[in-house]
């Protein structure tokens, strides 16, 4: 009984670890986009502000 409980606990732990460790790598599609944006940007990025507002957290 004790062994079963321990096994369950260890399975739960490893599942939890798997869930908490997403892949470090970005997808190849993502890497391709970044590579392209660095090498051949679609447009000259405007200087200064790129996004956002004067929104404020209360």
């Amino acid at each position, binding site marked *: 009984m004790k062994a079963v409980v321990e096994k369950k606990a260890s399975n739960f732990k490893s599942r939890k670890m798997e869930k908490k460790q*997403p892949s470090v790598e970005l997808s190849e599609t993502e890497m391709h986009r970044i590579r392209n*944006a*660095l090498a051949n940007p*679609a447009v000259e*990025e405007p*200087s200064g502000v*790129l*996004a*956002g507002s004067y929104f404020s957290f209360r």
Partner: protein
Amino acid sequence: MPRKRTYLRYQVYRSEARKRAAVTFAKLHSELEARAIVDVDYSKVRFEAIDASAMKAYEQWLDPHFCWEEIVRWKAKEPMSFDLAIWFDRELCGLCFANPNQSRLRVKIVRLEGHPNEHPLKGRIATFALTAVTHFARIIGSQQIEIQEPLSGALPLYRQLGFEFDSEGRLVKRIDQV
């Protein structure tokens, strides 16, 4: 107490996302260098928190659009938020602040600003920032990134990076699962 725990947990996620962004660009730098299409040494790009050093460097910017001093207060109020200072060597080139919604399924880029004058990463701040935010979103399990009030001049670049307007008019990108 849970807020404190959340803050510390997300501190680890923020730090990990910045590290992963640096690794991604180191890898890309080697690739682009091998193909002789690199004009900037990406190994000098640093991804840091918006801390006292960033604020000191930001104070030297001439005519910035946003008041980034507010971010220090926001960071304390939003324990799950992601703040990013993009440096080239010792020069502060860009600042970004993003925040996940309550369900954490969507990370919203609240502010993104590059150095208003000449700097070594000119034209690439959005690419660097969005890559770091993508890492952060993946770490916390988000499915989507949204850019709040994107500058219209940068839209082609956002599209190039995979963003599209959804049916509600929000500029979003789905996070690819690897």
